[in-house]
């Protein structure tokens, strides 16, 4: 494919010319991540320059159509661009739930007007979106949500509470699942609604986790309003969009590379703390066998992600199998962190003064992994999905 190589050359040249030197480095902390939005404060001028230049070219979302602010690139071109960015250690110009979640939903289910209104500001990092799915009473049973949007002619009045809304306290808008028909069966009275955060009826409260400070918030709607045109897709058909995005999210959460823990493998960590015997093996039989087995599973898991990607490319759908990835990947990640903690010993137990301290990175990450098998659908829910949709085992 000479075209692709030509594209690679152009991309490389452009990136060399346009990516500021100061930000060409691996992402190492919160300060290196740009989320955008009205409240955003760039940590450096170069961050802003980089975002603006990339946005202008449509490369903050390379595969989205050009008319909505994307780059209009093919999958292959987008992959080349990613490789070339990685080559010079160029970070993503902007991260956001708008890019990962809302954009794909609007592209698939949104009206032409909605796409034109909401997608360009996402591409340019001007509007930051939060996700409003979960509710305190609902948990894994997402469709049991109670937040209601009552029809008031040209707008909805929204009342209720969402939980696990990441960064809601810093976001401009939120996409929500709301109940628009309380009398319908629970999956059939739900709609997908876009709501402005910047109004008196919306308030947020941060959630502290067992691992300390977190991006999560509770978000409260108290007679909040949203215009009718903010309804995405059909009225009472929001569950379809929710399912689409959940599958999307599952693949993301399950697919996290878990072979390394803070840049080192559990085997390397253990070699430092327990040493090796005369055969060169870890001196601790227990750690050695547990780590080796987890490495076997980790490698086979990565190959499974590769195989699913290749299957998708070959036109075969992966479907409910994404539940398998989500389940296995998150359980594996927990296991990895348990092993890394054991390999590190006393040192990893140190966590700094106060629950919100920045110290104790290993322990905080270990604690944080425990949510992996809960968020985006618990492990138990994934097993139910596999059992029903793939194995076709009967309902009780």
């Amino acid at each position, binding site marked *: 494919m000479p075209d692709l190589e030509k594209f690679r050359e152009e991309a490389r040249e452009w990136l060399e010319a346009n990516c500021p030197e100061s930000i060409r480095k691996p992402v190492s902390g919160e300060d290196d991540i740009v989320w955008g939005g009205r409240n955003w404060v760039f940590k450096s001028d170069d961050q802003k320059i980089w975002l603006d230049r990339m946005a202008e070219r449509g490369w903050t979302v390379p595969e989205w159509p050009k008319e909505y602010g994307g780059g209009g690139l093919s999958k292959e071109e987008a992959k080349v661009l990613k490789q070339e960015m990685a080559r010079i250690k160029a970070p993503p110009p902007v991260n956001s739930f708008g890019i990962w979640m809302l954009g794909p939903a609007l592209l698939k289910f949104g009206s032409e007007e909605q796409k034109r209104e909401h997608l360009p500001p996402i591409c340019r990092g001007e509007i930051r979106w939060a996700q409003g799915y*979960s509710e305190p009473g609902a948990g894994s049973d997402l469709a049991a949500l109670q937040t209601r949007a009552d029809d008031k002619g040209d707008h909805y009045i929204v009342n209720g509470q969402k939980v696990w809304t990441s960064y809601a306290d810093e976001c401009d808008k939120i996409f929500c699942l709301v109940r628009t028909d309380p009398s319908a069966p629970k999956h059939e009275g739900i709609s997908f609604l876009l709501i402005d955060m910047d109004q008196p009826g919306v308030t947020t409260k941060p959630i502290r986790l067992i691992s300390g400070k977190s991006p999560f918030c509770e978000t409260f709607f108290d007679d909040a309003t949203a215009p009718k045109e903010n309804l995405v897709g059909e009225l009472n058909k929001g569950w379809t969009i929710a399912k689409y995005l959940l599958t999307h999210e599952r693949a993301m959460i399950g697919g996290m590379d878990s072979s390394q823990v803070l840049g080192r493998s559990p085997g390397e960590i253990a070699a430092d703390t327990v040493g090796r015997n005369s055969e060169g093996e870890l001196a601790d039989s227990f750690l050695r066998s547990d780590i080796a087995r987890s490495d076997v599973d980790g490698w086979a898991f990565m190959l499974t992600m590769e195989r699913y990607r290749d299957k998708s490319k070959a036109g075969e759908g992966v479907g409910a199998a994404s539940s398998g990835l989500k389940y296995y990947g998150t359980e594996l990640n*927990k296991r990895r962190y348990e092993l890394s903690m054991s390999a590190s010993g006393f040192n990893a137990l140190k966590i700094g003064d106060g629950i919100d301290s920045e110290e104790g990175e290993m322990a905080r990450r270990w604690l944080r992994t425990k949510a992996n098998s809960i968020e985006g659908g618990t492990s138990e829910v994934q097993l139910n999905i596999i059992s029903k949709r793939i194995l076709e085992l009967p309902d009780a």
Partner: protein
Amino acid sequence: MALVLNEDQEMLRDAARGFLRRRSPVSELRRVRDEQVEGGFSRDIWREMAEQGFAGVLVSEEYGGSGFGHVAAGLIANEMGRTLAPSPFLSSAVLGAAALGRAGTDGQKGEYLPGIAGGELITAMAVDEGDKHKPEHVTLKAEKSGNGFKLTGAKTFVADGGAADLLIVSARTAGADEDQQGVTLFLVPADATGVTINTTPTVDNRNYADITLDGVEVDGDAVLGEVDNGFVLLESVLNAGRSVLAAEMEGLAKESFDMTVDYLKTRKQFGKIIGTFQGLQHRAAHLWTELELVESAVLKALQTLDENFDGAGAIAALAKAKAGSVARLATQEAIQMHGGIGMTDEHDIGFYMKRARAADELFGDADFHAGRIAMLRGY
């Protein structure tokens, strides 16, 4: 001895439970954390515990204790595990009292034991030097110096090291770095010249310290037990500590299990009480059987300590191994079964998982002790 509690022991347990639920529920640990209480526990509550007889449970009546013994100590620890009560019970009332009671001269006993039993004197065992427990790895040097010794080196992860008045320090008086022979125990006042104590906040919000000894001078009276032959003493004292710590882990594992079973009976998902889901039922039932095994191993270890203190090595390893692995499993399952709410700092259940991991690590984790049993069985 029958592997059951007698009536006195049951009464003691009930009394401890009542006191701890009232005076040191989980909210007390949370307070200690949030207010960054110095030393990691409330001195007032520790004094009340001493009045309850907790601090003197292993100190003989002669020195102001009750001498109830290790089963009793385990019952108290078990209840402390249930409420995650922060206190220097393990360090002072168990390790300190056992070490001095076992090997102290009359002078040493008279000087320290009444203070331990009264809750006024707090001791801490300074054993480890690396990131994993390995008591025979002793490089902290004790060189003869005048009538006494000069101690130089560093210890890590000393439980209650930041609150202790008296440190019990393993030091090398002879032999190579990993030899059992040549280890001597010393009693070192925490305020001696040359002692630096840095507390290290940990996931379980208890009080640990890294301690440096820089040419600390002690006289001959500071030796606990025999010079060069301290390792056997150290091990038997640690075995008491491990068994009581296993009892604490039994308590915390059971409490987190009880909380989880209660939650399963009330939480609804998909229109059903989640406790009706067989997937969760079977995991809970399996955990119950594991907890039964922990109870048996822990009780046997405690009884053995009361009967034959020095012969309790293998059974202490069993208790610590089994309690450590099951406490970790139980608390991890507790979080998963609680779902999102269990991940929030607002809920107590996370505190149990954090303590389980630190307690498992302290004085040898489950694998360390399974490995000891393997060695004892010849593989």
